[in-house]
């Protein structure tokens, strides 16, 4: 989903920076407050950030015959909310832009918007809705992470289609035509990878619940009743 360095014309790269920067600052503010209030969450925060690091470094082959990578932001979004996930995503994207020529500094705003903001927001909403509907916790985590991953890539397609509409001028028809082409690459390739990301995220979340459910309950990520049910029956 990385838009490569230099591949967003003016004014689009500035626009995405303008959208992303306030969210990042809000995320940093939230992060500082959270860490100050509850120092004991630091290890979990490190785990969530590390998970983004691992998953976004794995370029996986997809059924379409090309490679792409998962995002790993679902867990962070579920545990800490979208704003803090945006900060974690930004750190990873800067690493990849500087050391791997993967993504870029001018396109950082757009990439943060897709991977750090839209993906986590979708994951967060799916998680909240699923928990409200009383579905199995791990199924909900699976769905949240998978849809968050997929939404990231759909967003990238939108960003590129806005910048490169067919016919040159930005019309609805031109946008849709370009969107179809970009989505054929990103969104289709991503479907199997999103499923894998969802599965691995559910597994990681299971281990977090196993060793540290008390913090999750305290942060109101899951309810005590859910933990007791998981403990009581099968996990």
């Amino acid at each position: 989903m990385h838009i490569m360095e230099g591949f967003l014309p003016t004014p689009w790269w500035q626009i995405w920076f303008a959208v992303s920067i306030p969210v990042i600052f809000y995320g940093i503010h939230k992060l500082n407050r959270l860490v100050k209030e509850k120092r004991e969450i630091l290890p979990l925060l490190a785990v969530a950030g590390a998970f983004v690091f691992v998953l976004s470094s794995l370029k996986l082959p997809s059924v379409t015959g090309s490679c792409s990578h998962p995002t790993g932001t679902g867990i962070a979004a579920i545990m800490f909310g979208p704003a803090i996930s945006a900060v974690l995503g930004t750190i990873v994207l800067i690493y990849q832009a500087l050391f791997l020529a993967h993504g870029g500094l001018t396109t950082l705003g757009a990439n943060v918007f897709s991977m750090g903001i839209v993906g986590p927001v979708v994951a967060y909403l799916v998680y909240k809705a699923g928990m409200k509907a009383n579905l199995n916790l791990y199924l909900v985590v699976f769905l949240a992470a998978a849809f968050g991953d997929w939404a990231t890539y759909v967003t990238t397609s939108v960003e590129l289609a806005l910048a490169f509409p067919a016919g040159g001028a930005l019309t609805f028809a031109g946008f849709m035509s370009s969107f179809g082409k970009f989505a054929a690459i990103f969104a289709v390739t991503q479907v199997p990878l999103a499923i894998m990301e969802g599965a691995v995220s559910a597994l990681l979340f299971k281990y977090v619940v196993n060793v540290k459910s008390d913090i999750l309950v305290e942060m109101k990520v899951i309810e005590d009743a859910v933990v007791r049910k998981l403990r009581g029956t099968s996990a």
Partner: protein
Amino acid sequence: MSRKLELIVLAILLIFAIQFIYMSSTTDAEYGGADGEAENVINEITGGTYEPNAEPFWEPPSGEIESLLFGLQAAIGAGIIGYFFGYYKAKKNYENELGYKGKNKSEGDKHSL
């Protein structure tokens, strides 16, 4: 502890692995990066007139160096995850064993770093 979820996840990963082995041996798919394919589409839409307005500061000089840095990224992440899960697991075990839980809990948590 039930291992149901582990089995399901393993099954999902196996399906993709087998699918990949089958596909890569029967077709001549290139398995290039999707990011690079987007570049081709941009060229196609604009008729090749688009000039990138910026260049990366620094590029890994070869594919080997690039995979080194990607591997490093994964290793850092995996190390952190493993460290804290091991830490939490051991802490929980000792707490249960010594009946430490509940006593001095808030203080214990403060030292969790």
